[in-house]
């Protein structure tokens, strides 16, 4: 006996999963989304702006959230993970494990619990660059706007101050993990990606200096909702970061790390270069690259626009040494300027490692006929029916391609389910 029956089960609530869900739902099919974080939005929800339009991801997310709110065909489970998947195309039995949120539906989002909470822990939403409470919402445009308690961070002796503070009896510290079973005709896997661990590249100095950061951290630093309120500064001393280096292929296109090209890092760095240039007219940016990859129309246009800025230098040559000059806190970047045919050592305030995307097939037990290649990507099988992978769990792709693939996955999914009307 299943707790819910749905046409399509979408695993992952990032841009790919959300898109598959709303598109399928608006075509007349019922959809359930399972997201492991307490909130929807995934990685794009952490971005400051999208390339090449430099528009905020929250704009599109707001529209998708609205489509979800108004749709009676979409249910979603946050803070939940898929356990076992059994059955066959057209009728799968999926167990979904719901992690306790410790906050029930009575939550009004009044923020009292956060104010009362005595505990502060590193804020993973801001890539650990600042702190948050144990009772929290990561930012003000999250969906669902419902608080969550990070039990792992709680101090037993805090006296459950959040519960006392809540006027609406919304806090339930004894909430237990639950396991529900969902019947689904088709399953779409959109579990997305995680940034590659930069500390694995010992020559790029991540971890040895606070001023060597990743592109994901840069998005947060540049974001108005981020730890510095959008001010681009050196983490070490808060000094304005006016000399910024971008190190391309930090892990990508590298057998020792990620053998493939992550496809977005060139554009991400060009975009982040505009963050710096916009904020400090007297700033200088250097982008060290192997190949600048901006395929297509709008991306190439964006590259040209950034190149017009004489304070942005594109230097062909992969950076192979980065370290801090302890005296100044500057980060020294070593590379070969290939076209000038000489080795250079240059000091910067901030060095941004353009780390790549690593696919995350979450904890779920995938059916054995789902192939995963040695780079961790799901290998789509043309004849495979019923279960479809989409987005960065299948290929490193940008938002535009994720959306195309996700919409296409919705079609495959409804094919499996069959025509409704």
């Amino acid at each position, binding site marked *: 006996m299943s707790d819910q029956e749905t046409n399509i089960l979408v695993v992952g609530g990032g841009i790919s999963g959300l898109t598959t869900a709303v598109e399928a739902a608006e075509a007349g099919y019922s959809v359930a989304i399972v997201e492991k974080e307490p909130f929807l939005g995934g990685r794009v929800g952490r971005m400051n702006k999208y390339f090449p339009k430099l528009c905020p991801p929250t704009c599109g997310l707001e529209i998708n959230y609205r489509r979800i709110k108004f749709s009676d065909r979409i249910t979603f489970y946050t803070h939940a993970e898929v356990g076992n998947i059994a059955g066959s195309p057209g009728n799968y039995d999926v167990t979904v494990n719901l992690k306790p949120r410790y906050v029930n539906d009575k939550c009004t989002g009044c923020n009292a619990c956060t104010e009362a909470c005595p505990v502060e822990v590193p804020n993973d939403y801001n890539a650990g660059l600042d702190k948050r409470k144990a009772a929290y919402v990561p930012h003000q445009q999250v969906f669902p706007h419902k608080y969550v308690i990070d039990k792992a961070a709680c101090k037993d002796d805090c006296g459950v101050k959040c519960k006392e503070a809540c006027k609406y009896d919304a806090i339930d510290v004894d909430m237990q993990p639950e396991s529900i079973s969902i019947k689904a005709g088709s399953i779409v896997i959109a579990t997305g990606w995680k940034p590659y661990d930069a500390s694995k590249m010992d020559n790029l100095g991540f971890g040895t200096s606070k001023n060597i950061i990743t592109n994901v951290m840069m998005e947060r630093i540049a974001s108005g909702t981020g730890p510095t309120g959008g001010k681009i500064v050196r983490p070490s001393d808060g000094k304005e970061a006016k000399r910024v280096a971008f190190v391309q292929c930090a892990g990508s296109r590298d057998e020792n790390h990620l053998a493939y090209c992550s496809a977005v890092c060139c554009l991400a760095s060009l975009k982040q270069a505009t963050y710096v240039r916009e904020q400090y007219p007297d700033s200088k940016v250097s982008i060290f690259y*192997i190949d600048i990859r901006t395929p297509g129309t709008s991306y190439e246009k964006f590259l040209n626009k950034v190149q017009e800025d004489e304070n942005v230098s594109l230097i062909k040559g992969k950076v192979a040494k980065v370290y801090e000059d302890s005296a100044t806190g500057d980060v*020294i970047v*070593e590379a070969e300027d290939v076209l000038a045919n000489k*080795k*250079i050592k240059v000091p910067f305030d901030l060095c941004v490692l353009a780390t790549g995307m690593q696919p995350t097939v979450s904890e779920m037990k995938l059916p054995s006929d789902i192939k995963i290649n040695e780079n961790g990507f799901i290998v789509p099988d043309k004849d495979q029916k019923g279960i479809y992978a989409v987005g960065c769990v299948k290929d490193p792709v940008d938002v535009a391609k994720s959306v195309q693939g996700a919409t296409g996955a919705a079609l495959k999914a409804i094919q499996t389910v069959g025509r409704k009307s």
Partner: protein
Amino acid sequence: MAEQVIKPDLDFVKGIIAGGGDTLKKCYQCATCTVVCNVTPAENPFPRKEMLWAQWGLKEKFEGNPDVWLCHQCNDCSVYCPRGAKPGEVLGAIRKQTIKQYSAPSALVDVVNNKSLIALIFLVPAVIVGLFISMFGNWSPEGDIIFSQFMPILPIQGLFTPALLFGVAVGALGVKKFWGDMKSANGVSTGDLKGSIIATAKQVLGHEKFKSCDVSKDRYSSHLFVFYSFVLLGIATGLGVLYIDILHLDSPFRFGYGTPVKIFGIAGAVAIIIGTLMMINNRFKNAEKVGLGSYFDWLLIAIIGIVGLSGTLAYLTRIAGVGGIAYPVYFIHLVFVLSLFVYLPFSKLAHMFYRGAAMCFMKYSGREEEEEAVQAAPQETAPAPEADAGPDESAPEQTEGGKES
């Protein structure tokens, strides 16, 4: 700027691939190697550009090219290479090609480094030594073990001195040709030769360049051992000649271990064995990233190893008085020492000539001084706001051209 005609030579590429540079084509010019390399100069650094030249089969680019010889094959580059292109090994293979180009007769390079001919290249010296013994010595001397009865001093000198001279002569001629090519290729006419040689000698004795390697430091120490074992054994041999030809003492010299000849001899023996063992160990240690190395490399390690081992063993068995073992082992020793001398300019050992020459040329051409200046880190050349008006040197248009270089 004059147009330079590019003539890709697929056979040259295949040659390098066959000669231990099988990873050559993996390089995609990211330049990680030049950055992690601590022995390369900052202007026109290697090995990135050499990798591309080799990929395109531009063999003329390697005529009179000192850079491939400046590489000490420490393989820091191979460890960090994102494509597994192993520039260190590839340059080794390229060096082999240039040895072939400069050590005449070049055919010998192929013979010596041809796996399938391994038996032959040791058989020939064995036969020669055998002949000498048959003619001047005694295959099974009676009584105390005295090697000079097995193979008398005179014929030894008669055989080994010319052998060594041959090796050195070929090497010297190769260096002469190489030096000339380097001068013309780099447009250098004159310089301070004497000073350069002295400076180089200092550098070599101190292994200063090799020392600067990062990841593969132990390659430096193992090489140091072997290098000094050669020096020590050279001195010991010299002393031997002194005792025999000038002081007219009979070998074996039965005097205490405190005396110079013994000290140098034994120290050298110990050093050569430790050194070779370390080399072998290193090879296996970073085989995963760097590979085990080519036949070209192993041949030399083998010869040196066996020379050291057989020498020591012969000495010990002689003391122990086990003639049944001492003489055969001594025979092997002689064979391999002879191979060492004769193949000197054709085996990997030729690097002592050409690397020496290349390092010397660095100073002769004054390129090394320029280095000091450039290396003075870090440049404010690139994008510092305080860098005054005008497009700074790292602005794309400047970089793209790289005119000044």
